[in-house]
Structures are given as C-alpha cells and as structure tokens.
C-alpha cells in the first residue's frame, strides 16, 4: 500500500490513506503535487473531502500535515491530534455561459424559443411539400421541448419583468433559467441558481 503514493511517502493509517506524511511533503516541488492530483485513490468520507480540496493545488495539505501522520496505525481522528481538518465543501455548480458562447448570443427563454419555432414550423409546412427538403429531427424535438417547458401564455411580459433583474447584475443565462424553472419561492431560486447568492 505504501507504493500507492509517491516515493518517500509513508502510509501511517494501515492503508487507509495515501496522503503524504509531513516530513516527506516538505520540500517537495510542484511536480509532485501535480502528479498527486492525477491519481485516483480510495478514501473514506472525511478523507474524500480532503482529497477533493487537494485538487485545488494542495492547499489543504498544510493543515493535514500538522497531524500525527508519522505515528502510524491510528485512525483518522486520532491521527489529527484532535484537530479537525479545515474541509471546505465543494462549491455548488454554477451556470457560466458568457465564457463559452460568442458575445452576440442572446439567451432565449423556452417560451420565446417556442414562439419562434412555432412560426418557423408554419412556414415549414409549405416547404415540406418539396420532397427534397427534410425537416430535421432536432427541430421537432426542440419545438416539443420548448412548448412543454414553457409555463407562460405570452413571453413578452415575462421578459419585461425578469429583465429588471439585470439591473442587479443577474446574467442573461440566469434570467432565462429562472423563467424556465418557474420557481414558487425564493428558496427554490437560490437553491437552483446558487450564483445569485453572491
């Protein structure tokens, strides 16, 4: 099990963890930390939190290294010397659209998309008489999804109301997501769009 970790590391907990011992950790350069991030190891629940945060660049290694890893044979709680490691819960997954789409992209609510696609479908009825023109499957699925997902009769008042949120630095993507979700409470909004809490 000792070979599971990098060279010079010692496994002090009977194979429970392959985290570096403090003595061997000190003085190691970044290449060791980088290779550590790529490894998959089995941890129990508490150490799993530590390993997750260590992927961010080994920041958690310092508080962990203060424990009694070198003594060997002890459980996690005892090995820490009674100290509770600083474990940060992973941040909730946030919606980030602006970085991945060009600036001219306009985010549409499902009800707006349904209106546009419905208009196109009416034109397509005429075009579909031409056997050379095939309506793609993604169009039908997209229209069906947009119609099912839209809870509103008209998108314009919804857009007017939610655009007011942009004055409070809410992004287009977040506004569209709020419209699509149709939340019933503020708690629901903050739970589903965690970036609004900032």
């Amino acid at each position, binding site marked *: 099990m000792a070979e599971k970790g990098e060279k010079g590391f010692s496994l002090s907990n009977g194979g429970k963890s392959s985290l570096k011992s403090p003595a061997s950790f000190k003085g190691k350069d970044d290449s060791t930390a980088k290779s550590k991030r790529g490894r998959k190891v089995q941890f129990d629940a508490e150490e799993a939190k530590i390993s997750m945060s260590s992927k961010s660049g080994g920041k958690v290694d310092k508080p962990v290294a203060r424990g009694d890893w070198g003594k060997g044979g002890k459980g996690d709680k005892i090995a820490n010397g009674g100290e509770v490691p600083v474990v940060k819960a992973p941040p909730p997954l946030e919606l980030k659209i602006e970085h991945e*789409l060009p600036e001219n992209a306009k985010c549409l609510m499902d009800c707006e998309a349904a209106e*546009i*696609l419905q208009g196109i479908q009416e034109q397509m009825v005429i075009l579909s008489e031409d056997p050379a023109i095939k309506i793609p499957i*993604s169009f039908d699925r*997209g229209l069906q*999804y947009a119609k*099912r997902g839209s809870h509103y009769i008209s998108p314009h008042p919804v857009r007017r109301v939610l655009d007011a949120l942009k004055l409070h630095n809410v992004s287009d993507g977040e506004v569209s997501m709020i419209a699509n979700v149709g939340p019933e409470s503020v708690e629901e909004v903050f739970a589903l769009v965690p970036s609004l809490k900032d």
Partner: protein
Amino acid sequence: MFFHIVLERNMQLHPRHFGRDLRDKLVAKLMKDVEGTCSGRHGFVVAITGIESVGKGLIRDGTGFVTFPVKYQCVVFRPFKGEISEAVVTMVNKMGFFAEAGPVQIFVSNHLIPDDMEFQSGDIPNYTTSDGSVKIQKDSEVRLKIIGTRVDATEIFCIGTIKDDFLGVISDPGATS
C-alpha cells in the same frame, strides 16, 4: 437552453445554380447543410431564422465552384453544466435512467438519485421511494441539474443529477390528472 445567435459559414455553390434564383438556392443549401447539425461550441442548430448577409462570391481556382461567405441567424440548443432542465425519462435500468431534453440525451446515474429511491425491476422498471409515493419510470417528467456534457460528431450527451434540493419528479405518467 436555447440561444439566438449569428453564425457565419462559407457556402460553395455549383455553377448550375447560378441565375436569378441564386440567393434562394444558397439559402436552401445552407438550411440543408446546417439545420440539425451539432457542434461542441454552439450545440444543436435547431432552425435558421434569417440571413443577415451574403458576401461576394469567390471563384475557386481549377473548378467552377464559387464560395460565398454567409452570415445567418439561427436558434441553437446547447446544454450547460449547472443548468436546470426538465426532461422526459426514456429508459430506466439498475445503473440509472436516461432522459431527453429536446435533442439532448441525459443520463442520471443511480449514485446521483436520492438514496431513499430504489430500483424496482419488472415489466415497468422504475425507481421508487420506500413509501411508494414517488416513482420515476418511462415517460415521467423530471427536473434535473446537468453536471457534465460530452459532444460527439452528431449529438450531445449529458450527465445529470436529481440529488439536490428542488430536483426530482415533476409528473408521473401513471398519475391521474
């Protein structure tokens, strides 16, 4: 999520299409080539809504083909990590369930299904809570969060979760209205 976006494409046209209907033929070819396609950056091109501009054609050396730069507006559908989506379940098995949100396939692993829901095999495989009050089966509507995406040549595939707050079954096909 749907987006309205302006894209550009170089369209090649054979000389047999030259004439007074050249623009119509160019637009028809554009629609045929682009609608229904999928890319990693823009997602699915669901429909072209208009042509913004058609640039000057350049004759390719050695052939009679002419290349026209065309800017067009279109509606695209692309899933994002962190997006909340309402999908329809298409298949349930012991590993999890598959759902569809528009043209996108989403898989929710059993590790990302709440622990109080268990897989029930049978004629209609489903995930059910211990008290039987909530059931996920084929054609159920679920609200899920997308946590990962993968793009193939022709489709986008996502991984989702229903293990967070305010996620889960919206409607059950077996329930009476």
